[in-house]
């Protein structure tokens, strides 16, 4: 990933994802040539997500949420990507980032702050140092 983020190879979500409470174990697979990772539902491999470092999409997001106590100091944040419309735009879900501890325990946050959109548009597919918002 392009940000200085290390993600464990397996994530455990005790409460699942919002609306998907049975989605507990996600295998993390890097994607060659991209700054994203793939999260695959171990119990239902057809279900999976592409995810990016939250700070790649919204620089400083992790620190901002740490400052408010929403994110623990040792947690990193991923955001899930989606595509919409024709022509396709790719978006990142900033309102529901996944906070991940070094041991793989993870939880999906629900952020009420309107600064964190459900569909934040990405202007480039492989963000490096100047990601779109």
């Amino acid at each position: 990933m392009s940000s200085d983020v290390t993600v464990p190879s397996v994530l455990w979500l005790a409460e699942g994802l919002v609306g998907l409470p049975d989605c507990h174990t996600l295998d993390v697979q890097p994607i060659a040539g991209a700054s994203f990772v793939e999260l695959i539902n171990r119990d239902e491999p057809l279900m999976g997500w592409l995810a990016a470092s939250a700070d790649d999409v919204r620089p400083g997001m992790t620190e901002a949420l740490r400052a408010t106590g929403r994110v623990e100091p040792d947690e990193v944040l991923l955001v899930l990507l989606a595509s919409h419309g024709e022509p396709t735009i790719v978006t990142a879900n900033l309102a529901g980032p996944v906070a991940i501890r070094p041991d793989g325990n993870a939880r999906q946050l629900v952020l009420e702050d309107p600064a964190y959109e459900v569909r934040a548009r990405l202007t480039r597919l492989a963000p490096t140092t100047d990601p779109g918002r």
Partner: protein
Amino acid sequence: VLVLTRRPGQSIIVGDGVELFVVRIEGDRVVLGIDAPREVRVVRSELLRDLEDENRASSEARAHIRALISGS
């Protein structure tokens, strides 16, 4: 569904330690204050629905985005 009538400044208690206040009424909007323990999640219902929909949409879009990445 329990329906209660409250005026600004009045409140109701929900469960243990959650208090919901009517702060003020502005036209067709009610401004609420919520006093709840930190571990109690308080969010607008439509936000939860949006996140649920987006989580599903994101999963369905995985292959499409991968194809876009491959082609970019």
